[in-house]
């Protein structure tokens, strides 16, 4: 049990594969953009280097500046423990709501960290982030609860059938909210590098920046796992898991390469329209 939680398929496995997947994504994106790109293991070096750097705390930083990045990573990892990979590590009634909650809180903690750093750029980024949460959270919740309601379950487990075939709209809305949750283009609005100098990450250095970077990576991996578990027929062994998760990663990378950044109000309109479309699947589940 302890081994399951801490090492495999728990925290250590999730951290290592999250970093690895981030590296793979960078390499894939580079090849699609006609670049060579960094080696796949580069992200390990980046994180190791960041943890060794001195962390500078800005004078005007408010309480929570140090705490929130750690909370963000902890929430993302906890959500990861609740998502079943081959079998469930921890399971209890209503755990899918806890997953939604922890993933949301992980995002919120990052924006609060930005807000606590009291930098104008970071505050603008945090406000954008909160608006984006309002945008994507509705389609995401719909996407998570559709399979639950369809099978009248009260705790999450692996669905052997490919639910994407039965509820395609909900599956697509799940995929789209992954894009916004981990700020992949066209939804990298809260940390827009050109507009607001990295947004909520502007004042972070060293270990705290490493925590924030890790949170995004872990969230990406956990959301990919959740997508596989809910809609793509689950994974019975590590090879199936690798194949399916790399396929989702490839799709995410294609989106990353293919689009320009949207403005925040365009993103809001997009997600709320899409929430309406995804709600069709929800209504089908409830009434049919």
């Amino acid at each position, binding site marked *: 049990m302890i081994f399951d939680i801490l090492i495999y398929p728990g925290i250590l496995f999730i951290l290592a594969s999250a970093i690895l997947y981030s590296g793979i994504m960078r390499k894939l994106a580079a090849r699609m*953009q006609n670049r060579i790109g960094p080696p796949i293991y580069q992200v390990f070096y980046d994180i190791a280097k960041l943890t060794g750097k001195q962390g500078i705390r800005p004078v005007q930083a408010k309480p929570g500046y140090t705490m929130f990045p750690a909370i963000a990573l902890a929430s993302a990892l906890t959500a990861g423990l609740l998502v079943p990979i081959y079998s469930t590590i921890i399971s209890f009634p209503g755990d899918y709501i806890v997953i939604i909650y922890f993933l949301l809180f992980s995002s919120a903690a990052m924006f609060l960290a930005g807000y606590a750093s009291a930098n104008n750029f970071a505050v603008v980024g945090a406000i954008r982030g909160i608006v984006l949460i309002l945008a994507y959270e509705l389609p995401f919740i719909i996407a998570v609860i559709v399979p639950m309601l369809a099978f009248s379950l009260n705790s999450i487990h692996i669905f052997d059938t490919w639910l994407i075939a039965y509820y395609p709209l909900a599956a697509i809305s799940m995929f789209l909210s992954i894009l916004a949750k981990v700020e992949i283009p*066209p939804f990298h*609005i809260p940390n827009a590098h050109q507009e607001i*100098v990295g947004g909520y990450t502007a004042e972070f250095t060293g270990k705290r920046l490493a925590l924030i970077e890790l949170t995004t990576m872990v969230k990406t991996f956990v959301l990919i796992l959740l997508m596989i578990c809910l809609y793509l027929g689950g994974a019975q062994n590590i090879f199936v898991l690798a194949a399916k998760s790399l396929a989702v990663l490839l799709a995410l990378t294609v989106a990353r390469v293919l689009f320009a*950044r*949207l403005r925040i109000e365009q993103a809001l309109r997009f997600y709320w329209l899409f929430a309406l479309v995804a709600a069709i699947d929800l209504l089908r589940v409830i009434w049919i």
Partner: protein
Amino acid sequence: MSKEDSYSIPLGPQHPALIEPEYLKVHLDGETIIDVDINIGFMHRGIEKALQQRTYMHDRFLIEKICGICSSIHTLSYCGAVEKLAVIEIPERAKYIRMIIAELERLHSHLLWVGIAGYEIGFDTVFQLAWRDREIVMNMLEKMSGNRVSYSMNTIGGVRRDISKDMAEELRKAMDKIDARLHHYIDVFVNDSTITRRTRGTGILTGKDARRYCAVGPTARGSGISCDIRKDNPYLKYSTIDFNQITHKTLDIESRAVVRLKELLESTKIIRQCLHMMPEGSLSVKVPEIIPEGEVIYHAEAPRGEIFYYVRSDGTDKPYRVKIRTPTLANILSLKPMLKGQQLADMPVIVASIDPCFSCTDRVTLLDTKTGKTKNVDETYLKSLKRR
């Protein structure tokens, strides 16, 4: 909401969207831009003063360093001005070679801009691909002149290197390749919905405002104003060449992008005609070291708009005064009407849409903090500083 009640964020002097140090103070209400204060002056290098202490021939090297991207148009204008002063006619072949280099420079400058525009709207793929295609032009320039950035092709009295027959053939092939890519980019900028979402209807500069703020080059042409020195006051051999002046009337960022891209199709046309019309002959004529007394102006169409040179000689081997006005100085004020009322998210791409080149732009204004009086550094002031 008024300017005083709003909060402000700085764009620059160090900012990822602008490579060069310039400071735009942006007043915001939420995400809406209320007003913007434009401050220049972080990169003043005293080049105009330095030019007065070197001989005419030496100045050529310094002038090439004013701008990294449009280095050839600067020397073209400067050499043209000095030749006008010395009353020298340069060989026909040199004129055509100067034009070819100037148009190649326009090609690489605008392709660079296409990449920057993509980068500013968070579309890195456009950035990577446009810069890949720019390499075609850069390779041609390197093969011709030996340098990728400062070509050192123009000299007072002509040009320094020839374009051989093989080179001309290679250049024609490269132009065909560039043409194909340009048609693709025009299609992308007009039809791709992810780009037009950001560029259509943002950064409006009306024709009236463009005239009021004296915009030049593609910025003005994107507002439907026809102004192109190559047409209005042809220099070198532009009067004998058949090309169109591109204007576009949608007034937004897309308009400026389309003007730039279509202009490049005309540039490849000009290069092909130059290669065809170029006569055989010598490359340069000898110029005396002492330039006769007098003053002269010379203007040319740089990639970003009109470039203006004033050269005054007092009959020695050093210029008495060289005054340079680069296109960004003319264009930068038009940012104000473009930015007002826009979203913060659109600010980087609007600023980039004038294709700013700040290092060429900087001027010095002295401010007396006790009285609040400002004073521009002009000729009389510089004279008063001179050691007696």
